[in-house]
């Protein structure tokens, strides 16, 4: 479905994607609310090939995130040389309610993007992970 948006040369294998994700702490969620697209950064942690993140309640975005499918993107770009990579995880975002999962998220050290009184922990269970190198300048 998404294969035709990238050329084969740029594609990263999935284990490399997870390796790259584990090196970063900030990613971005892409959601659609009332037919309007939105992208916002979140802190995240990877654990057993799922994405754990925290977001403040009351945001329309929190509701949008809990819709069936979200896209979560992480990248690292060298702005001088314009080289880098981008990984997109697609999947289902669920709110953590079980105590063992909440403790896990807390143990992972997931921190809110912005301080809030009561934040929700979310977990994204991936249905697809795709990574690509960004076609920057040669070294």
């Amino acid at each position: 479905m998404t294969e035709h948006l990238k050329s084969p040369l740029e594609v990263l294998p999935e284990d490399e994607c997870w390796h790259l994700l584990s090196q970063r702490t900030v990613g971005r969620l892409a959601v659609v609310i009332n037919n309007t697209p939105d992208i916002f950064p979140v802190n995240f942690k990877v654990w057993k090939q799922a994405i754990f993140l925290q977001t403040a309640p009351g945001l329309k975005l929190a509701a949008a995130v809990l819709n069936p499918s979200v896209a979560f993107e992480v990248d690292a770009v060298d702005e001088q040389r314009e080289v880098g990579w981008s990984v997109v995880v697609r999947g289902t975002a669920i709110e953590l309610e079980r105590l063992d999962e909440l403790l896990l998220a807390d143990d992972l050290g997931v921190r809110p993007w912005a301080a809030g009184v009561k934040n929700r922990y979310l977990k994204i269970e991936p249905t697809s992970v795709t990574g690509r190198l960004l076609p920057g300048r040669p070294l």
Partner: protein
Amino acid sequence: MSAHTVSDRISLGRLSVQECEGLLRRTPIGRIGFTFGGVQHILPVNYRYVDGTVVFRTATGRKLEAIRSEEAIAFEVDRWERETRTGWSVLVVGRPNEVVDDEIIAGFEGLGLRPWAAAPDQNRWVRISPNRITGRRID
């Protein structure tokens, strides 16, 4: 529709439109978010903020067609500093249009927005006219 519907009031953590525009002018890489085939896509692009619009290059193909078919796409830039745990995020939501006017494109050529080295066929220009620009400081 007015160009900017966001309030210019500066509240805690929120960036004014002027601050957002200043950041947009100084940051070379952002991410576009759009829907294609029912799936969310986010990918980094080289861009310039010109005359209140976000301008970027892309190649002919399905990605361009997907972008052109959208009424509104999202464009986001952010910066996060791990050590100080501070950062900011700016979101632009607006209508994308392919620019085909030769005079305008000639003007774009002076922006220093070259195609990425491994994607020399990025010879199409897209401009996002913002419906809204919002930003927040994160700490």
